[in-house]
């Protein structure tokens, strides 16, 4: 047992269980809110990207390209440090709101590409069938295309969710105390980097494995012909 204590001092770590637990909860909370935001943004931009109006689809395409060619950390800094007061709130975004907004905007661009691929995978004949029934663009999307596309995109969306959760570690840079910053706290207070960061890594790994399992399950259940 002494051998283990030298490499991984679980006794010191036990004092920090509340910090790690709170950090884990915050990470999950941030990711959960950002996930819903990104799905909404992704769906809207995927539909815009496929719209016949050139202004609309060019706008959506530039958004996706701008997000994809800049680092998330820069996006977080711009939203948190550089955004002025928000008129409706009468104040600037706090670190939690800024972090969530940046994560949602970032993941939304990637989600929109996945959803767009899903929409385009729906056979052309089905859209033409819906058109010949006199359905409008909105109706075709709502009743024919999106239900089929969503079933096909669930596994890659879960993969993107795993990336979103990992990326949420970057909001610790603007002072949100989540799972990663719990590790930083342990390192700075006790100077035990091994225990601090191996524990953090294990925490993220567990979340990832759960999502991996869910993705495989969804792939089996939703697999098309």
């Amino acid at each position, binding site marked *: 047992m002494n051998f283990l204590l030298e490499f991984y001092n679980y006794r010191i770590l036990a004092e920090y269980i509340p910090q790690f637990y709170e950090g884990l909860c915050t990470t999950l909370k941030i990711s959960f809110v950002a996930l819903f935001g990104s799905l909404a943004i992704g769906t809207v931009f995927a539909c815009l990207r496929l719209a016949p109006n050139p202004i609309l689809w060019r706008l959506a395409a530039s958004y996706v390209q701008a997000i994809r060619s*800049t680092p998330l*950390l820069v996006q977080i800094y711009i939203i948190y440090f550089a955004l002025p007061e928000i008129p409706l709130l009468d104040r600037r975004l706090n670190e939690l709101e800024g972090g969530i907004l940046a994560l949602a905007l970032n993941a939304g661009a990637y989600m929109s590409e996945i959803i767009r691929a899903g929409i385009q995978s729906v056979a052309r004949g089905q859209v033409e069938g819906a058109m010949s029934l006199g359905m409008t663009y909105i109706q075709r999307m709502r009743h024919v295309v999106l239900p089929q596309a969503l079933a096909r995109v669930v596994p890659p969306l879960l993969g993107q969710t795993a990336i979103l959760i990992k990326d949420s570690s970057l909001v610790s840079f603007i002072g949100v105390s989540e799972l990663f910053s719990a590790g930083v706290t342990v390192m700075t207070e006790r100077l035990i980097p091994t225990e601090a960061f191996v524990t953090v890594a294990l925490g*993220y790994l567990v979340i*990832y494995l759960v999502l991996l399992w869910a993705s495989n399950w969804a792939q089996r259940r939703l697999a098309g012909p």
Partner: protein
Amino acid sequence: MSETILITAPLLMKGLWLTIKISMWTVALGSFLGFVIGLIRASRMKILKAALGVYIHCLRGTPFLVQLYLIYFVLPATGVEWLKFEAFPAAVIALSLYTSTYVSEIVRAGIEAVPKGQVEAARALGMSKWQTLGHVILPQALKLMIPPMTGVYVLIIKGTSVVSVIGITELLRAGEQAALRYPSELMTLYGLVALLYFVYCYPVLRLGRWAETKFGRIENSL
């Protein structure tokens, strides 16, 4: 505004140069490592394949930030002399390991996209395993790998922004330092940093799109 840009330009350019240096090192090292792992993953070496599967999941399942800290702070704490890295090598090694997981899956998918019949035909003609790989599989697989590989290179460039945390003054940290000096021009400076990243990444993304129309894409990959 233009005055601030002029004054901070040398600092930002130095940062950009370091970003380019880190990303180029990582492209070379990460691609090589990923290529070797991908070859093994596509081979029939069962135990090694399974071990590398665990390696890939471990690296994919944790944030890059955590991996960077593990390599920069935890490895030196083990006391082994050659595991004590300076910031720059630590950044390149961490980014390369992270990159290798993506590259290896692309290489594996590219190799598996070549029809089995061709391999069997080559073997029937008396070609050795390595000849089959070099003359039949790779010439076709490499072309298929180019489009997804550009995506990985963009990932690397963006990943370099995270290494600012261990004290490397690359583009983002240079921007932070400039912003500390001119707090009133925060939006301009961070906008400029974002623009520089965009200028570096966007051509690579375009190249990927061009390669995809030219060489086609691997079905069901990634």
